[in-house]
């Protein structure tokens, strides 16, 4: 298998952040892990764009550049710039939802919050094919 070095690290990071999401008991940590997962995807696309070379795509005349093939691909950069701003919007909404939950249950732990939700509202913990659903809270 012959993979580019810029492919391997983001994919590794994706799995690390996925591990972090499923094992963290703290919701703040889960939100941080979601941001890290998004960063890994952005890094993957920038890596794909940078395989030609790492010259920034800002120039006055393309003929004056020594190696025009070494210019990084501008299309993933433009799309990922948009994705970063959208990521902030997602993070803001995540934190706001967590604040609303914290106001109700006074905790940021998944398990404690789930116990309190079951106790307060009489919700039953759903068993969806072996996965304990946390969407009930």
């Amino acid at each position, binding site marked *: 298998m012959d993979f580019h070095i810029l492919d391997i690290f983001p994919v590794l990071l994706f799995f690390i952040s996925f591990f972090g999401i499923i094992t963290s008991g703290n919701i703040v940590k889960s939100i941080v892990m979601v941001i890290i997962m998004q960063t890994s995807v952005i890094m993957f696309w920038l890596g794909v764009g940078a395989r030609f070379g790492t010259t920034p795509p800002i120039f006055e005349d393309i003929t004056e550049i020594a190696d025009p093939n070494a210019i990084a691909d501008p299309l993933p950069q433009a799309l990922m710039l948009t994705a970063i701003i959208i990521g902030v919007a997602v993070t803001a909404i995540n934190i706001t939802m967590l604040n609303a939950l914290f*106001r109700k249950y006074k905790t940021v732990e998944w398990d404690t919050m789930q116990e309190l939700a079951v106790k307060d509202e009489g919700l039953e913990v759903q068993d969806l094919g072996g996965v304990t659903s946390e969407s009930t809270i």
Partner: protein
Amino acid sequence: MNNLIIVLLVFWIISSIWCVFAQKTYRVIIFFGVFSLLTAAIYLFLGAPDVAMAEAGISAFTTIFFIVCVEKYYSRGEGLKHEMATKTNKPRKITRYIFPFIFCVALLVLFLNFAPTGYVVTELRDQYLQMFMHDVGGLNAVTAIYLGYRVYDTLFEALLLVVAVVAVIHLSWYEKTAVSDGKHSEMERSRMAKFTMRIICPIILLFGTYLVLNGHISAGGGFLGGLAFASFIICRFLVLGIYDLPIEKAIRMEEIVFINIVILPILAIFTGIMYLAWDATEIFQNIYLIAMSGLIGMKVTLGFFVLFYRYIAIERLPEEGEGE
């Protein structure tokens, strides 16, 4: 590949592993800051200065978001005042990990089978790099793409920021906005920080103006200029403790700016005024690029202003005995 990038990537992975195995919430946030800084450095060395600047600014904002929230709310929760453990002691069901494990294996198989090896040749890249000065204008190919070729993406991104602001306002706790006097904020305001801010704030404003006006000929643009302006407003909140800005007008103004962001590309691109073979076309292109950068900068500034105003100035825990 440059050895420096590989060293940075290794530290990048190490910092993320720190973040996963950190036991306290503050440590998670600080390691996340380290991670984001390394990310911005790698973006820069990959030839993406615009994305690197955006990531650096955004990571600072996100870190402040988290620290403000932990400082103001989460540290007052049950059992969190002294020890904010992120690890639960309860044993978890093994079955809980089956679906994630299957998901990981499927992703790994997809990556091993379908990851592009070698060079990815796209004709679009060559066409953009050859033609963007003629088609859209400016010297920065990235700005030319997100303001010219793919302006739809920018429209929807602006729409998403509006939706996020609306969602944050409607999910916030208080219907009647009680603007705080800043006293409940537990952040110490030192005289030195105030003095430094008074010197730095004009420089931040100047830098933001430079970024907006030069977005089409160098790294920068509306997003980054807006971030600089927003950081100025947040400095006012956090360091100087000034909350006198009119939030209702800001929300109203954000809607107007969004309508302008929709109308301007329609007028400029769909009527074809940028593609006419006049001598004056270049002037039109530059006016369009600077106007769009300015509008996006205003949009981002107002969006972040409203978000931070909700977080820092308005939202607070109810005092003892105060009803919901």
